[in-house]
């Protein structure tokens, strides 16, 4: 067991990613393990634009039906993608440390279904018996900025140039050019760009 420094310094061979991952020009992907939980079976399953920089704290947890797209010049410091269907990040988006972006809750809300889910999900359970989950795509438009520890929930559309402050829990759409904060996130300043 030896640590290969190239695996954590962005010098690994990006061509070793699954064939359904498309990496643009001049990308920098710091840590190979960021993609360890990438299980998409879509074609493509992940598109990274040009000059995308992805730091060590980012992880792509993508389910077989999931698809993630990241636009040119975006910076992903610590984005935790939890993707069951579709997460689309625009161009020149900045995502800070410990930001969870989830297009599904991944578990049912009905108490009876949750017991079934718990049994199917147990260490020796049969995961094919898990109840169906609801997913709704997440879209983050160009030039948005997501602060430390924010959580972006299913179905959310974040408009162009919006700013999500640290720790915000975003359950509803954010208009272009506005700043939101808090849990639940509410607008604190700014006005629409368009």
């Amino acid at each position, binding site marked *: 067991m030896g640590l290969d420094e190239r695996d954590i310094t962005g010098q690994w061979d990006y061509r070793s990613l699954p064939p359904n991952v498309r990496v643009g020009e001049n990308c920098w992907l710091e840590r190979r393990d960021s993609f360890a939980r990438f299980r998409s079976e879509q074609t493509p399953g992940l598109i990274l634009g040009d000059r995308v920089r992805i730091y060590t704290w980012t992880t792509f947890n993508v389910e077989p039906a999931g698809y993630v797209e990241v636009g040119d010049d975006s910076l992903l410091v610590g984005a935790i993608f939890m993707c069951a269907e579709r997460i689309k990040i625009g161009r020149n988006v900045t995502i800070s440390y*410990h930001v*969870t972006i*989830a297009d599904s*809750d991944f*578990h049912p*809300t*009905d*108490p*009876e*279904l*949750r*017991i079934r*889910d*718990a*049994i199917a*999900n*147990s*260490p*020796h*359970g049969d995961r094919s018996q898990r109840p169906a989950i609801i997913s709704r795509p997440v879209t983050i438009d160009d030039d948005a900025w997501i602060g430390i*520890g924010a*959580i972006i*929930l299913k179905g959310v559309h974040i408009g162009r140039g919006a700013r999500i402050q640290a*720790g915000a*829990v975003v*359950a509803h759409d954010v208009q272009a050019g506005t700043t939101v904060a*808090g*849990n*639940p996130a509410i607008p604190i300043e700014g006005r629409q760009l368009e």
Partner: protein
Amino acid sequence: MTASRLEHDWFSHPLPENVRLGERTWVYSSYAFRHYRSRRAIGLRVGSHTGIYQGTFFDLGPEAEVEIGNYCSLVGVIVATNGRVSIGDYSFIAHEVVIADTSWATPGPSAATAKPSSARASVANSLEIGRNVWIGTQATVVGGVRIGEGAIIGAGTLVTHDVPPFTICAGNPMRIVRTISPGKGASTR
């Protein structure tokens, strides 16, 4: 039954002697007990078919007693207590959740300068998470609170007071978002 070593473990330490794991329960590593100092006869008891996954830690003081039921999932949770914490059957606790009793959660002006021994000894806490509870990612549960059966705690919620059964609670400050009607046969309550 006590397994002193986990078969799949990469961490060289054995499990603490006062930990009990039920049948078909899985713990990612004895590293989960890196900060475990319970001196109780049983410091941690876990039921059957429960998964204790990567990133979960039992940061327990000498007086701590933690009980976890059957068919639970703890997906990277920090349990920090010197009191009693119980988690009911079928509960699902997501990543980066912290469950801490008040003596640890409110260390005073600075965690670094607090006097942990006196602060911890002064509070005898009991934190209770009911059966079939779902706690979303990055939520924090502090103090001697009770979370009722079937409740759902939204992502990032700060739980500082009791949660009624079969409700969805979210936010900081936390509020009841709505109540859940248990499906047919969901509960014998």
